[in-house]
């Protein structure tokens, strides 16, 4: 049988200001049989998205396809004229983008966007296209498609938008789908159901697919074959099982080692070196409420934190996990004093902390430092590394110029960067290096508490592993308290002494990492843990439905009286959970859970 898609010796170049045209894809060839799903994996810069787009005969502005063939059956997408190529898109090959929120046009209704391709390419009457779109939505478990399609993109949740994008791609019944990181931008809990819907869709329509992702676990659930890419070249290629269980190339093995592990395994990897069981309290939050917009005590505009209690011991690492919108970053902002809580109290080493950073003494400001996700936006692009690190030294300490230079050198050594990086500009650093400088800048203040807000989320897996190692080493050497915020539970589990699980502005479960990961008590913790994809073919198929809702919404919703998790909870008690606030209980000493169930998940298993 001849392949559906055959890419041969594809070469793509990208324009770099100053350097000219540089190769991005260096002669890649691949084949895809009908009904087959091929996963393209690799880190950023591997050229996987570029190949995915080239399979549609498209190169992004700033890129150009230099040579090669992209054959759909026997038609070369690259040599046909533009009009012919245009007619192949949507009809024969369709695209599912990473961020549906960005890729849907905000000013057009969803219905129009879903039906325009079949109407245009297949000359389908609008009514028929609409019916077809609705039935595709139903296949993807989207509720009330009739109503949904009359909405604008911003009125629909992220998980739903991603499914709608799949329904849009299937509009003309294409033979081939290109999925470009389609679940990377959504929460793990939502990801499970979206992946399941994608998988069923592909299977039932006998569609072939190219699945582009950096996530080995995700790709192992869908792909029949996996192609590992690095720097625009194929590193290794083979059946999914073979790549996962018997990787040959050293790079693939490295990727596998750094890939997301099951949270429980991650805990084990942490080893048993524990700090003293009950360290003195460094930072304490008591019933902290915070909101955006004008907050009056009675009716805050956008409540985000609704009574957070948290204790962080001296030299302890506390991980904070939860879906986007649950209030993790707001918690960090509140601790630093960037956002003034409208109720509740913060204490640093027993002494009350002023709610706003401007009201804190300079030395108090020094003791709490924040490391953000995006060093790119936190750095002045015109400042050298030396200036970036020198500022906090100048601000907090009375040092001579010589002492300051000495200290900058020390800091660079601490984050394992060469001393001559002092003269570099942010744009001359790689993503991982920038994050090291970002970390060094926070450490320059010699803080007692370091807040790390998604510090590894923008980094590739291998770089992430290195940054985490560094963070771990520094934390134990300097004995600082670390609040590590991440949506990635495995990362947190491999790292934190204690874990706090947040949902809709409250800490719903908190305890020692081993205990929480090993035996979650709150149903939300369970959902979160079970949703983390495993690098194990068949994991997705064997998974029971975890989330009762297909919406997935960890944000605070209006008129909340009872437990915010009720609509999604598989154990919800009708008449109780939605009405009454859940009690705070301690199933074991040193553990705290907010749930109406006495022993919840543990007992039900």
């Amino acid at each position, binding site marked *: 049988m001849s392949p559906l898609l055959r890419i041969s010796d594809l070469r793509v170049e990208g324009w770099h200001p100053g350097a000219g045209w540089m190769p991005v894809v260096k002669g890649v060839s691949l084949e895809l049989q009908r009904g087959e799903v091929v996963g393209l994996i690799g880190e950023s810069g591997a050229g996987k998205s570029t190949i995915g*787009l080239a399979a549609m005969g498209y190169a992004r502005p700033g890129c150009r396809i230099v040579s090669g063939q992209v054959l759909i059956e026997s038609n070369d997408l690259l040599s046909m004229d533009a009009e012919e190529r245009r007619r192949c898109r*949507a009809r024969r090959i369709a695209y599912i*983008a990473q961020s549906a929120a960005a*890729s849907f*046009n905000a*000013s*057009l209704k969803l219905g129009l966007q879903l039906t325009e391709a079949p109407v245009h390419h297949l000359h389908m009457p609008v009514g028929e296209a609409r019916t077809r779109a609705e039935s595709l939505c139903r296949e993807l478990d989207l509720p009330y498609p009739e109503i949904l399609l009359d*909405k604008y993109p911003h009125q629909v949740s992220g998980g739903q938008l991603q499914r709608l994008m799949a329904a849009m791609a299937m509009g003309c019944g294409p033979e081939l789908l290109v999925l470009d990181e389609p679940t990377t931008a959504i929460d793990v809990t939502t990801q499970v159901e979206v992946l399941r819907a994608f998988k069923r869709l592909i299977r039932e329509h006998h569609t072939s697919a190219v699945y582009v992702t950096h996530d080995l676990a995700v790709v192992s659930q869908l792909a029949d074959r996996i192609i590992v890419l690095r720097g625009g070249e194929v590193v290794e290629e083979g059946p999914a099982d073979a790549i996962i269980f018997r990787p040959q190339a050293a790079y693939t093995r490295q990727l596998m080692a750094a890939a997301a592990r099951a949270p429980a395994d991650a805990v084990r990897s942490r080893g048993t070196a524990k700090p003293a069981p009950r360290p003195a309290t460094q930072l304490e939050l008591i019933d902290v409420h915070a909101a955006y917009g004008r907050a009056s005590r009675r009716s805050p505009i956008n409540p985000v934190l609704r009574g957070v209690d948290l204790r962080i011991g001296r030299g302890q690492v506390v991980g904070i996990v939860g879906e986007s919108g649950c209030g993790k970053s707001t918690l960090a902002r509140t601790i630093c004093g960037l956002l003034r809580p409208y109720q509740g109290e913060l204490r640093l080493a027993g002494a009350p902390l002023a709610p706003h950073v401007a009201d804190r003494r300079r030395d108090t400001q020094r003791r709490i430092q924040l490391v953000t996700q995006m060093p790119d936006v936190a750095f002045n692009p015109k400042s050298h590394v030396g200036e970036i690190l020198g500022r906090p030294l100048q601000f907090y300490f009375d040092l001579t110029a010589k002492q300051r230079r000495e200290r900058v050198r020390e800091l660079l050594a601490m984050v394992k960067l060469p001393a001559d990086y002092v003269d570099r500009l942010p744009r001359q650093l790689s993503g991982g290096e920038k994050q090291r400088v970002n970390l060094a800048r926070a450490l320059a203040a010699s803080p007692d508490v370091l807040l790390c807000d998604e510090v590894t989320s923008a980094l590739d897996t291998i770089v992430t592993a290195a940054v985490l190692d560094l963070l771990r080493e520094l934390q134990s050497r300097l004995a600082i308290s670390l609040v590590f915020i991440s949506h990635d539970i495995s990362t947190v589990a491999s790292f934190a002494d204690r874990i706090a699980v947040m949902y809709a502005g409250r800490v719903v479960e908190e305890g020692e990492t081993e205990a929480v990961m090993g035996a979650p008590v709150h149903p939300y913790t369970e959902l979160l843990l079970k949703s983390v994809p495993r690098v194990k073919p068949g994991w997705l198929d064997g998974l029971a439905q975890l989330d009762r809702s297909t919406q997935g919404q960890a944000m605070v919703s209006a008129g909340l009286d009872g437990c915010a998790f009720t609509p999604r909870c598989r154990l919800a008690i009708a008449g109780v959970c939605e009405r009454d606030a859940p009690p705070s209980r301690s199933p074991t000493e040193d553990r705290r859970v907010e749930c109406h169930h006495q022993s919840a998940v543990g007992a039900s298993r």
Partner: protein
Amino acid sequence: MIRLLAQRVATGLLTIPAISLVVFAGTEILPGDVVTAVLGQGAANVDVAAIRQQLNLDRPVPERYVTWLFSLASGDLGKSLGSGQSIATMIGERLPYTLRLAGVTALVAVPISVVLGLLAAMRAGSWFDRLTSGATMVFLSGPEFLVGTLLVILFAVNLRWLPAVSFASEPQGFVDHFRSMTLPVLTLTVAVIAPMARMTRSALLTALTSPAIEMAILKGMPRARIVLLHALPIALPPIITVIALNLAYLVTGVVIVEVVFNYPGMAKLLVDAVGTRDIPVVQACAMIFCFAFVALNLTADLLALVANPRRRYPR
């Protein structure tokens, strides 16, 4: 949404009294005095004082401001110091001319500039794009008295197709009107096309690089549909704003053009009043210009709000 609209209207209306203060203060510090302008430099001090009293010019400034503001609010624009005519009548005669000039120019210039911008954006980098962007740059930098004068030299002096002065006599019939307005309209069009076309082009180019447009391309949509249906709504808010600013300019900033062509509009009235130190007329004209400016900007804001589905249908 309603609340947001009401808020915008309220802030718009609030700027009017604020502007009145600036206008009044501005005319207060204007050098010269109507009385000496009327009576001549050598007038006797006694006469000057008498007339000042008659015109209430001897009252303290805050008191005169309040009186002026209240009569303004009740729709009374006062009387011209020079001619004693009611200012409302004077403006009533001139305003239609200005509105006609602005209206005709808008009808000509807005479609031309939007289409030019669209075409330039669709063919970014082509010779057409380079030509329009070069030409608009030239027009943008050339002052309109120069453009106006050049047009007069070409069409009125050399070719003798059109009159150099708009209203030497009261125009009769459509052809006459057309002939007398062509040159001022052309001059203004040249002046306002440039910013509007350039903004349309750049807003559209920005919109065309968005992921939503990439998606439309990957859906195999034809180019024209992508630009008009997908990209234009994204690019609309800045285009609306720049159109409104230029329309406001047409109403308020045509001083030079009206003077060059001796066109009997508001700006001409204003310039003449400044010449004779006829302060109430200056103030009234300035207030009307400001009002038009605020009204047009407010309309643009409201349109941009209404055009945004996120505002129309909050989550």
